[in-house]
Structure formats: C-alpha cells, structure tokens
C-alpha cells in the first residue's frame, strides 16, 4: 500500500474516533457512536497489517486471537457490578501495551547500535514512565475494587516525600537517557522500575470512595501513554486517539471531583478515609429507631410518592431487580416512584445508571441530584438502599465533617425516611451519619436482597 494511501486510511480511522466519541456522548446516538469508533479501530488495524514493513504474521495472528478472544470473553461474562474493575483492568492493559511497545522500540535500537533522535527519545521516556505507572496503578485500583485488598487508604510517614523523590529520580534518568546516547541499559530498566513503583505508591493512599476519580484519571493516562507512543513511532492516529481519550478522562475526573466538592489534588494526595476516627461527631447517646419489613411495607404501600436513593450496597447485593419489582408494586397501588442518582453513586462515574438500566428501570425515572433535591420535601418516603455518605446531612451542616461541603441528596427532608442497611457500620468514607438518628428515620437492618424480598412479599398482602 503506498504511503499516502496508508496515511489517509489512518486519518479516516481518526475521523471515526472523533465522530464515535461525539455520538457516544448523547443517548440517542451512543450505540452508533461506539460502533463507528470500532470501525475506525478495525480500519487502523487492517491498514497496519497491510503495511509492507510487516514480514511475519504468525506471532501477530496468535496475539490478535489470544487478546481478542480474552477481551470478548471478559466483555460477555463480566457482571455489571464489576464494571469498575473491568475498566480498571482495561486501562492497565492499555498502559501496559504502550510500555511494551516503547520498551521494544528502545531495545531494538539499542541492539542495533542506533540512537533515537532527541524528540522521539523524549516521547519514549514519557511512554515508559506513564505506561508503567498506568499498568501498576490500575492493578492496585483493580485489587481494591475487587476487594482483593482493603479499600482503605494506606498511608505511611514521608509518603509524599518518597513519591516526589522517586518522581525526580525518574525525570533525572529520563534526562540522562535523552542527553547521553551512550547511557547504559540499566538506566532504561530503572526508569521503568520507578514507573511501576510510582503507580503502586500513588494509588494505595487513595480510599475506596474516591475510586471513580482514580479510574477516570487512569483512563486519561492510558490515553496519554498511547499518544506518547504515537510520538515515538511517528503515527498520527495514535496521537489523535490518545489525546482524545486523555482529555475525556480528565473531564470525567473533574466532574467526579466537583460532585464531591473536592479538588483533584485533594483526592490524589489527601489520603481521604485513612483513619476511621476521622469523624468528630460521636453517635453516643443517640438512638436509632429500628423498624421491621412489615412497618416499612405499610409505609411504602400508602405512600403517594417515593424516592429511591440507591447506593453501592444495592449493587453489591445484586438487588437492583428486586428494587424495580418493589417499585412496580408501589406504582400499581398508585404511588409514584423515582430514583435519585448521586453523581458518585456506585464505584465509577455513571455506574448506578448502568445497574438500574440492567434491571430495566426506565431511564427517565433516574433523576440527577440537582433536579430531584427540591422534590424531597414533598415526598412521602425516601427509601435509602445501601447508600450512606451521599445522604449524610453532615455534609451540609457539620463544618468539622470530612465531607463538609460535598453536595448530597436531601433525603433527610422527606416526610418519612427508610434506610436499608446491613448494620450500623460507617460508609466508605468512615464517617458517622446523623441521618440514621433522625426521628423520621426508620432503620431496616439486614442484607439488601433478603430485606427487599420480604418487603415485596409484605407489600403484596397490604390491602
């Protein structure tokens, strides 16, 4: 294939990505957008395979089949509750692929005694560093989300100083390799090792509640790593696609930060949720009012309006289908049911919407926070299921609370409140929640799924 034609085909692929992202950002066209972007990827792959420089196809074919097969299998079997882990894993693999390509390019030129031109050498250093960091950082995020390790922030003395020192050493190594064509191989190895280590160190102090931000940011990094690889191999489609992903990841991280009323720096370096004793308000002397499924069923059966506030606890219990069943029963009795979705409900941006869509909840019933907050006052029952920090009134009133200032769902303003919860444990952020001690609140303890099942049965027999 002549070079000009190859370049034009890559341009076509880039156009597909741009159109794909544009359409992906709007509900009516999202499906088409994703497919167009997939077509772009197919074009890019085919054009590359037709490249005259490629001599052997056996290894490539094996890689395509193994990777493609693995990807397909994961995509088809993954549970919707596990989407955050899946995206974390894919981010990591994307970063890892960039690291491997950059590393291979370096080793090839090293073996042949060639030296990199300065400009692609700079890009190479970034590819290695960001790729390595994305790989291990995503690995830690995956482990935290999969609950293979504690979701709590892990902190130790001089952590930030250590990270800063490692970052400086990495930059020093990068500068050395760029300025001295005869720099030894160990400098290359050391740079990668530091990148891998930094990925781990940067993610372990970030608590489970902040994972949506971390995933968005790692998504951005995997894009930037791809763009840097594009600088190394001088390929525009990598640069364009990588830059698009890089900026979209940054925007999603910012949206998430805004929803928590915190800066990106605070999320990354604040070690939020490290100490369980972070709360200054003690719950001593306060009592909760415990209710039974019976009581709750009656309250819900006679409610004219119900707002369901779903949290991650609902997702963990795989109870989203039962919630819809319960909502159907309430609606059959003439009540109106809506769902209040906090931007950080779930463990990645928009996660709760996906889970409820899976349970066939019509998406016009999923109301965003700003829109629904004024409705709580006029609502008979706010049904809080497995949510905690996003309904904590302390965020509004208690200036000493770690989540003070975070926008919350005003469930406490509803005429009646039912909170379904496994026990009195605190949320991801490790903070006491005064909503539970509100006299209007009835606490319904137990596993969300079992309790919802009981509720569904009870509400059927309320005459």
């Amino acid at each position, binding site marked *: 294939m002549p070079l000009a034609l190859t370049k034009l085909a890559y341009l076509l692929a880039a156009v597909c990505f741009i159109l794909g992202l544009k359409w992906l950002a709007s509900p009516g066209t999202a499906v088409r957008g994703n497919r167009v972007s997939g077509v772009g990827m197919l074009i890019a792959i085919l054009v590359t395979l037709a490249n005259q420089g490629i001599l052997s196809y056996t290894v490539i074919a094996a890689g395509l089949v193994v990777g493609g097969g693995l990807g397909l299998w994961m995509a088809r079997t993954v549970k919707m509750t596990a989407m955050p882990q899946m*995206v974390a894993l894919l981010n990591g693999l994307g970063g890892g692929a960039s690291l491997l390509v950059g590393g291979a390019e370096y080793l090839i030129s090293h073996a042949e005694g060639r030296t990199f031109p300065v400009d692609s050498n700079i890009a190479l250093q970034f590819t290695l560093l960001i790729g390595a960091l994305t790989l291990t950082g995503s690995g830690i995020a995956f482990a935290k989300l999969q609950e293979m390790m504690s979701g709590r922030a892990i902190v130790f003395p001089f952590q930030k100083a250590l990270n800063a020192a490692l970052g400086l050493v990495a930059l020093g190594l990068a500068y050395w390799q760029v300025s001295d064509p005869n720099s030894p191989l160990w400098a290359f190895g050391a740079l990668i090792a530091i990148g891998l280590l930094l990925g781990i160190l940067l993610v372990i102090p970030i608590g489970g509640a902040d994972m949506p931000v971390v995933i968005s940011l790692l998504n951005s990094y995997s894009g930037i790593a791809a763009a840097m690889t594009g600088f190394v191999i001088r390929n525009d489609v990598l640069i364009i696609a990588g830059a698009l992903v890089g900026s979209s990841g940054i925007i999603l991280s910012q949206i998430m930060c805004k929803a928590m009323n915190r800066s990106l720096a605070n999320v990354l370096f604040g070690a939020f949720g490290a100490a369980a004793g972070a709360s200054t308000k003690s719950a001593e002397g306060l009592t909760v009012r415990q209710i039974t499924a019976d009581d709750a069923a009656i309250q819900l059966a006679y409610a004219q309006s119900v707002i369901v506030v779903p949290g991650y606890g609902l997702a963990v219990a795989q109870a989203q289908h039962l919630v819809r069943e319960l909502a159907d029963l309430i609606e059959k009795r003439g009540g109106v049911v809506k769902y209040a979705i906090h931007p950080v409900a779930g463990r990645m941006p928009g996660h709760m919407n996906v889970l409820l869509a899976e349970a066939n909840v019509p998406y016009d019933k999923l109301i965003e926070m700003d829109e629904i907050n004024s409705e709580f006052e006029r609502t008979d029952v706010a049904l809080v299921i497995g949510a905690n920090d996003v309904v904590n009134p302390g965020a509004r009133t208690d200036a000493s609370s770690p989540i003070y200032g975070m926008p919350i769902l005003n469930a406490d303003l509803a005429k009646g409140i039912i909170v379904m919860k496994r026990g009195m444990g605190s949320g991801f952020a490790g903070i006491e929640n005064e909503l539970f001690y509100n006299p209007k609140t009835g606490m319904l303890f137990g596993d969300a799924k079992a309790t919802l099942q009981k509720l569904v049965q009870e509400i059927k027999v309320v005459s």
Partner: protein
Amino acid sequence: MTEILLASIVIFTLATFLGVELINRVPSTLHTPLMSGANAISGITVVGALLVTGVDHGWISMALGFLAVVFAMVNVAGGYVVTDRMLSMFKKKPGAR
C-alpha cells in the same frame, strides 16, 4: 526541534481540545459507557504493537511485541463489546419489560 515533531505537537494539542469539546456536556447516564468506549479507543496502541511484532528484530522484541498485541487487543475487543452491551440495556424503551 524537527518539523515532524512540531506537526505532531500541533495535532496532539488540537486533538486534546477537541476531546474536551466532545465530552463536555455528557449526561451522567452515559459516563460509564463513555469511559469504557474511550478506553477501547486507547487500545489504538495495537498499531504500534503490530509494527513492533511484525518486523523481525530478534526474539526479545518479538516477545514484547506479542505481549503488547495481546494487551492492546484485550483492551480493544473488551472495551468495544462491553460498551455495546451496556448501551443495549439503555436502548430498551421505557415500559418494555
């Protein structure tokens, strides 16, 4: 600074701003599919992986290239298919159960 690098930096900068414009007003419903869809796009590194693997430079680069192709393809195939799966759940008309 070479001409090619300069052109690449221009492209990178423009594409970054374009990305911001494209994503800025996304409804929160679409955040998760958008992220996994964007994720699939970052699998474009597969192009670099193919080039490294296909040009025979000895077994080390071949092995690294093979791994890179596998990683990037998991990213590509997994990302696109899972996004499609999620979006198909949104597509169901309200009331269709």
